């Protein structure tokens, strides 16, 4: 059998498997003679909820203003970074993360008053610094624990400087960023992956991504905010406020980022955004020649699977001066059989076949012609009429 697993869809240049595992697909390719025509892609469907997580980026507020510790914001941590099979989304990942991180850090600093009360050019320069630090942190957050910590350090140090800190206070801000960044990233990752099994009943990759993002972002945001606030103030109440602020911000960003990655997943795997089921695959156009060869390859596969062998391809026969070319000749249990394959509902007989086949049914001898007929009848029979043959016409 060609199809070894449920719901496998074969197209000319691609196989998309659904409810299949790699063993079944491998078996499929091992058993078909057409394996050279196809390559396998996306046979292992990926659960978008798994690994879809958020990790907090760390925006350490003005170290001199404990109230500002609440201004935490978060960026995405994207495990698909490490599983993106084509690399097509590689730059997009970075840009999305950088954009979100940059804008949020710009907003945090504006809200804190770090970008006001100065001249135009200074505001522009410091605004650019705030955006740049946020963008760097957002991108680094895609690269796991080291990235979380590094991003936290950059934002923590930059924001401390923007808030007026100097010397060791800037370093202290960076240090707080490292701790809260790491803590938020770890908790956000854990929360996102923990909730995944609970979402198995949800088909939509967008919805799954959004929910996972909200939970991971909120958990990571609270943790990062709380850690940063506690370090800076030593006050649990202020730390809790800082954590709550981070939670709401993380949840909001997580929702957008998770839904975005759910969308990406659906597009990459050609599945419905809302049901998670495979979209109908548009079969690429095949020329009649390609379609015919596909049928011949299928026939060869069936013959070989039953222990037969192919003797030759494209055997020419002549009846009453009219020639036809039969697709192949096979030896099966000592029976040499000519095989003509028609593939698809629109495949019909050629004008010559319409003349020759009825004559063969009427018992008129055939005359083997050309070198490709030699392995079937032997060289002595070429050009000599014979009535000893079997022709099978197979319609797939």
């Amino acid at each position, binding site marked *: *059998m*060609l199809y070894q697993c449920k719901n496998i869809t074969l197209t000319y240049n691609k196989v998309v498997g659904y409810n299949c595992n790699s063993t079944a697909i491998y078996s499929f390719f091992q058993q078909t*003679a057409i394996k050279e025509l196809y390559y396998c892609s996306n046979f292992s469907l990926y659960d978008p909820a798994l690994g879809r997580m958020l990790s907090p980026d760390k925006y350490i507020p003005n170290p001199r203003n404990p109230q500002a510790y609440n201004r935490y914001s978060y960026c995405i941590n994207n495990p698909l970074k490490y599983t993106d099979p084509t690399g097509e989304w590689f730059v997009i990942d970075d840009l999305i993360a950088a954009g979100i991180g940059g804008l949020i850090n710009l907003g945090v600093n504006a809200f804190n008053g770090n970008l006001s009360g100065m001249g135009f050019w200074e505001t522009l320069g410091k605004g650019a610094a705030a955006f740049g630090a946020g963008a760097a942190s957002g991108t680094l957050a895609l690269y796991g624990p080291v990235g979380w910590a590094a991003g936290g350090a950059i934002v923590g140090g930059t924001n401390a400087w923007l808030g007026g800190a100097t010397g060791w206070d800037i370093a202290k801000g960076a240090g707080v960023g490292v701790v809260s960044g790491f803590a938020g990233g770890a908790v956000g990752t854990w929360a996102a992956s923990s909730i995944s099994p609970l979402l198995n009943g949800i088909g939509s990759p967008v919805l799954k991504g959004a929910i996972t993002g909200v939970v991971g972002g909120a958990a990571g945001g609270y943790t990062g905010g709380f850690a940063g606030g506690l370090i800076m103030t030593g006050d649990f109440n202020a730390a809790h406020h800082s954590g709550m602020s981070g939670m709401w911000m993380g949840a909001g960003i997580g929702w957008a980022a998770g839904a975005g990655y759910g969308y990406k997943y659906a597009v990459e795997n050609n599945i419905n955004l809302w049901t998670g089921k495979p979209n109908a695959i548009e079969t690429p156009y095949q020329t009649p*020649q*390609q379609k015919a*060869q596909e049928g011949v390859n*299928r*026939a*060869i596969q*069936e*013959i*070989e699977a*039953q222990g*037969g*062998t*192919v*003797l*030759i*391809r*494209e055997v020419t026969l002549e009846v009453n001066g009219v020639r036809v*070319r039969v697709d192949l000749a*096979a*030896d*099966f*249990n*000592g*029976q*040499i*059989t000519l095989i003509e394959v028609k593939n698809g509902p629109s495949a019909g007989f050629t004008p010559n076949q319409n003349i020759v*086949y009825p004559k*063969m*049914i009427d*018992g008129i*001898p*055939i005359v083997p012609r050309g*070198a*490709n007929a*030699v*392995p079937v009848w*032997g*060289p*002595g029979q070429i050009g000599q009429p*014979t*009535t*000893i*043959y*079997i*022709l*099978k*016409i*197979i*319609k*797939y």
Partner: protein
Amino acid sequence: MSSIFKKDVEKGLSAICDKIGFKKKQYYFIKPIDDNVIATLNFGFILHKTKGHIYINVGVGVSHKAIEELYAKLTELNKPVFKPTISLQIGYLMPENSYKEWDFIENADNSSVYENLLHCIQTYGFKYQEKWKDLDNLLETFEKIAPGILNQARDRYLPILYYLKGDKQKGLKVIADAMERQKKPLDESSMPTFSGAKEVITIVGSGIGKVDPEYLKFAENYNAL
């Protein structure tokens, strides 16, 4: 498909055969293995599969002079033709045990395809030619071939091999069985099935279900040996 491209491929195949000592003779490329046995290669040209491509399959065989001389005598061939006593597509001699073609592309550098084809002939083809050089191995191979209605090679060569081994009676038994089998109508259950097909039409030649007159002549001549 341009005829120039086909000629180019023919030249390329001749060149690789030349490298391993095979010369063209009628439909085959041949090389004597010893005084009695000739190694054969034949190339099937598949010209209509894909535009701008020629696909080549390779039959590997041997021709035993003593067997073929007796074959020509028994079948009363006016003009004996050179042919292999046994031949098989090389793909079935390879580990994948499957029909194999080599794809030559028009206006492309096909040198690696020629090299691969040559490598496969040397690696897999020569081994079998050496094996079939030996009459006992050849007999064993023919004994394993299923006795089909149309398998003229098996029903003719097996009695000849038994005769050459000094066991004519065994050869007569093969001939008698073959004639009985030829009288029977086609048994569809012995044919390959195509489970994926929507429709299968079988056209059976009017010579099926009767003893082949040529074979009858062969049997009479064999009996008279």
